[in-house]
């Protein structure tokens, strides 16, 4: 039995958690790949060309997108916690941030 | 019969957690010697049941600005049509001043303020000064939440969802030994011995078809006191609130209060053909006092006598729906939740049983005729006489609850040991409470409906000797039927139907007393109106009724009112004081 949660703030929370978790799983991989730069730069290049593949590219940019979502989500959260918004201002701010995330996200994806 | 009863001991036992019970717990803790064990037992959850929580309008207290304790006292006496016990009324008015400061300063309540920071006060009908302190129209929530927090954060033993079923005296009957209870969650019996017991179960006239009090209140306390042989006074005095919501018999919303302020603000009462009628009954129209408006609506209902269209209507829309929505936000929302449009449409209303002025005879320290038993709040009779002023109810329960705590804290010092119960009485009470478990299971609710019909029709807003006599017959028939109705005994844990049965038993017992006291009062005073005796009678010859169980029978006698402070026709206000300080509306 779970309460219906399809309200914006709850979705924002889920988005933030999922993106945070995904980032935390991805980051070690990212570090691992980078550390190849030290020992075998060829491998890195190999990887980077492997990363040229559209699927991988999409995944990579998905992650960049997640990072953007997480960062803006986090900033939104801290603004909500620390700045004394009034009720309507709060939903406005949340909405504006949502839009910002969307715009930046599509921008990022377009770069691909 | 072998009784399966757990035993438990404490020093101070408090029944009920309304304004009276919670204040008693706090004061007992302050007044009793170190190490005294205090226990609160309550039919529901601490602070979440009872009527103090439902207080809307507010708390009467004279706080200056021209108003005085004397004026509050005179309003109380005149409102009660000279029947109040004057010493109790005085104590109420005087101590309310201290109690409101305690509520604000020690308990942490915050009541509405004027722009200059002082307490805002308004006037209920029947008051000659702006005297009622309030927190919006949710005053009770503020009072009880704050009291509840204080009690929850103190080392007080809590027996929640424990229902008191019988007061058990000592073998010689000279004092109270303890209280028999049912732990509702498990269905087990528990006998709790205590040196002092406060009964603060809050009366509650829920034997009427339409009633306002919370569902847990079913006159258990007064029924227990009756069986224990204590004298009960003013038992005919049932206050009806004129505007209860009518949402159908199957809805628990039915009977709940539509606030007084609606009429004060200009709300109109209409009959089935859309006509205003209150001016036929009183020059003040809808703004007359509660008893007058209740009788007006009742009379009009009787006139139309249409089973498909029972109630009258309250109409607010002429004041502008937006305006109404803004001013009575809570009420509009409440009506909306149950499917009515208060701001723009008509809402069907009926008079609804609201408060019980009658109760156990006590002294000004809350002591009763039985040593060790104290009674405060709506269970205690005397302070209001024949009519309670709006705002004096919660003042009464908090003032006398506190006094009870103080008194018990002092008295307990001279009580060194716990008393042993009369095991026979214990067995009788046990048997009484378990009676339905040995009968064939059947529906209890239809009996409750029957009792509520009978009381509403025959012992209600307008009474006659023949009606009340018929009422007594109906009550006794219902009681007989109740004894045949059983409750399945397989699982007694949190068995609400068993408790419905016990509720009915209490309500039947007290209903009989109400009807008998009503017959004994052959005049019309305050809430009690006899069509066959419409006159109030001479004030100087005022009497109050006292009902008592003697040899299994309820006998009602009359006792003269002792005008210990002021005589009818006189006043204790200084000469030249204006009649009222309330600016004319």
């Amino acid at each position: 039995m779970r309460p219906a949660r399809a309200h914006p703030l709850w979705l924002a929370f889920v988005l933030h958690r999922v993106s945070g978790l995904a980032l935390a799983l991805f980051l070690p991989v990212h570090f691992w790949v980078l550390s190849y730069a030290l020992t075998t730069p060829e491998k890195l290049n190999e990887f980077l060309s492997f990363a040229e593949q559209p699927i991988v590219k999409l995944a990579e940019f998905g992650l960049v997108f997640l990072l953007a979502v997480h960062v803006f989500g986090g900033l939104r959260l801290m603004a909500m916690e620390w700045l004394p918004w009034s009720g309507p201002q709060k939903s406005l701010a949340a909405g504006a941030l949502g839009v910002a995330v969307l715009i930046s996200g599509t921008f990022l994806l377009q770069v691909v | 019969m072998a009784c399966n009863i757990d035993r438990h001991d404490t020093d101070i036992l408090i029944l009920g957690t309304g304004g009276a019970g919670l204040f008693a717990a706090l004061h007992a803790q302050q007044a009793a010697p170190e190490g005294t064990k205090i226990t609160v037992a309550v039919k529901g959850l601490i602070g979440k049941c009872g009527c103090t929580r439902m207080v809307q309008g507010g708390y009467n207290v004279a706080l200056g600005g021209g108003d005085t304790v004397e004026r509050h006292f005179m309003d109380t006496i005149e409102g009660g049509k000279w029947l109040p016990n004057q010493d109790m009324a005085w104590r109420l008015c005087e101590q309310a001043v201290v109690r409101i400061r305690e509520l604000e300063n020690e308990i942490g309540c915050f009541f509405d303020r004027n722009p200059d920071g002082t307490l805002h006060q308004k006037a209920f009908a029947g008051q000659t000064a702006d005297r009622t302190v309030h927190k919006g129209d949710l005053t009770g929530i503020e009072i009880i939440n704050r009291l509840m927090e204080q009690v929850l954060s103190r080392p007080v033993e809590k027996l929640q969802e424990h229902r008191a079923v019988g007061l058990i005296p000592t073998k010689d009957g000279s004092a109270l030994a303890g209280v028999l209870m049912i732990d509702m969650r498990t269905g087990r019996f528990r006998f709790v011995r205590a040196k002092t017991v406060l009964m603060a179960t809050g009366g509650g006239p829920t034997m009427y078809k339409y009633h306002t009090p919370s569902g847990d209140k079913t006159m258990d306390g007064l029924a227990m006191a009756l069986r224990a042989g204590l004298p009960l006074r003013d038992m005919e005095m049932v206050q009806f609130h004129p505007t209860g919501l009518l949402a159908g018999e199957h809805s628990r919303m039915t009977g709940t209060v539509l606030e007084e302020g609606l009429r004060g603000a200009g709300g109109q009462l209409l009959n089935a053909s859309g006509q205003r009628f209150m001016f036929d009954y009183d020059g003040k129209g809808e703004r007359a006092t509660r008893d007058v408006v209740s009788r007006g609506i009742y009379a009009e209902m009787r006139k139309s006598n249409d089973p498909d269209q029972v109630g009258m209507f309250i109409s607010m829309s002429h004041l502008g729906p937006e305006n109404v929505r803004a001013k009575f936000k809570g009420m509009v929302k409440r009506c909306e939740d149950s499917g009515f449009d208060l701001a723009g449409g008509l809402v069907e209303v009926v008079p609804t049983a609201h408060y019980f002025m009658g109760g156990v005879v006590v002294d000004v320290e809350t002591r009763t005729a039985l040593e060790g038993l104290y009674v405060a709040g709506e269970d205690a009779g005397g302070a209001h006489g024949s009519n309670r002023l709006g705002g004096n109810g919660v003042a009464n329960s908090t003032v006398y609850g506190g006094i009870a705590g103080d008194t018990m804290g002092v008295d307990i010092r001279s009580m060194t040991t716990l008393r042993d119960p009369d095991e026979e009485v214990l067995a009788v009470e046990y048997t009484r409470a378990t009676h339905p478990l040995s009968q064939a299971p059947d529906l209890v609710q239809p009996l409750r409906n029957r009792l509520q019909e009978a009381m509403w029709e025959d012992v209600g807003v307008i009474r006659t000797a023949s009606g009340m006599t018929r009422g007594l017959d109906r009550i006794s028939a219902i009681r007989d039927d109740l004894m045949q109705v059983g409750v399945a005994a397989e699982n007694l844990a949190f068995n609400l139907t068993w408790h419905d049965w016990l509720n009915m038993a209490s309500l039947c017992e007290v209903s009989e007393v109400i009807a008998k006291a009503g017959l004994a009062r052959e005049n019309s005073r305050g809430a009690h109106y006899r069509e066959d005796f419409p006159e109030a009678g001479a004030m100087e010859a005022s009497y109050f009724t006292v009902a008592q169980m003697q040899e299994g029978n309820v006998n009602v006698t009359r006792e003269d009112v002792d005008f210990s402070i002021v005589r009818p026709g006189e006043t204790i206000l200084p000469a030249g004081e204006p009649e009222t300080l309330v600016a004319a509306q």
Partner: protein
Amino acid sequence: MLDLRLYMLQRITALIMAPLTLGHIAVMIYAVQGGLSAEEILGRTQGSVFWFSFYGSFVLAVATHAAIGLRVIAHEMIGLTGRALTGFTWGTGLLLLAMGTQALIAVTWPAGMT
């Protein structure tokens, strides 16, 4: 499973990372447009004190931040408590720190110095 101290740590590290990640993303977008190669990345970063402290503070912050974040998730979603939870927090934090430091060194240490 957050008290004021952990909460402040998580928020402060988040505030530190915010400009860093945005900066990083901007650089990446720029880089992506020109096509990316190992040499290009390393050419820019290796031996640069600026990039060392840039990515260094990111690694420190992210290890702390993500460890606290994962701790909360581990407590709320799989019911980890007590020592296990503390161990998990430190474990993830140190792991991220170690891997991050390795990457940091690879990316910013002057070429041929190791």
